[in-house]
């Protein structure tokens, strides 16, 4: 399975980086930009490596990340 897009809602994200930690393929990384709370939200580093396991969606405490399947 391949991901078409990973949507990160930067206004819901609290920058806890649990999604980056649970990702088995290291698809996500911390961005250099900050959101309106002053927190570093995640960014997609390598979309092609995503296997759509949706662990990031399962572990996100704030429903801020969504993987769209191709």
């Amino acid at each position: 399975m391949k991901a078409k897009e990973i949507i990160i809602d930067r206004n819901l994200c609290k920058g806890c980086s649990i999604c980056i930690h649970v990702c088995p393929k290291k698809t996500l990384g911390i961005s250099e930009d900050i959101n309106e709370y002053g927190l570093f939200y995640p960014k997609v580093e390598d979309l092609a490596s995503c296997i759509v396991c949706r662990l990031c969606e399962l572990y996100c405490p704030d429903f801020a990340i969504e993987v769209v399947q191709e």
Partner: protein
Amino acid sequence: MITSRYIKENYVRRLPSAFCPGCGDGQILNAIIRAIDHLKIDRKDVAAVSGIGCSAWIPSPYLRVDSLHTTHGRPIAFATGLKVANPRLKVIVVSGDGDATGIGGNHLLHAARSNVGITVIMVNNGLYAMTGGQVAPTTPHEAKTTTTPYGNPAFSLDVSRVVAAAGASYVARWTTWHMNQLIRSIEKAIMKKGFSFIEVLSQCPTYEGRMLNMDHIQMLEWFKNKFREDADGIYKIGEFVDIEKPELTEELEKMIERVKK
């Protein structure tokens, strides 16, 4: 396939939540929503009851089912009334460790003893987080809290084993690392006829993490490595009790029929 968008559109009242960054309460909200969605039960047949504490905020106001936010330590008493008044309802109590065992410990014991058909999800972070990190009945021995700065001289309560001994129909313990197991357990607990109890070890980065010198990622790693099904005492996870017993509201109905004659 359940996506975040589907959950936000159908099950969550409002976001962002008031939980601290990295708090496990959001994950438990996610798990409850996924369990309700997997079971395909109507949202009108579910009622959520909560007391006071950080974890009491999980169903009220974020979970979009009928909810009751009650006084400190008494959610199980309110939930018992709700269940007896309308036995058709699936009543879910979400309560913290201080709320369920510290303030309302007797309600928990007696609900388990009478085997009333409610589901209690106890979020255990080992201290009273909302009021500033004071020592709770579930604080481990020698753990530092705000009120025990040199370590807890007392010993912690193994709540799951106490509730199992009190006579619950279903008892399980998981952590926020074990999300899939937790969702399956919540599904089983909601469908269980009698009293079901799930203890969820959750990370509190603000107070527990500060006292243990860990951030929430290290605490999740700690849950993953230390809490196992073959471990002992409070580190043992898994399903402890899964039995069928006569339930309180059914017994009440039988008694009413008998007395009417």
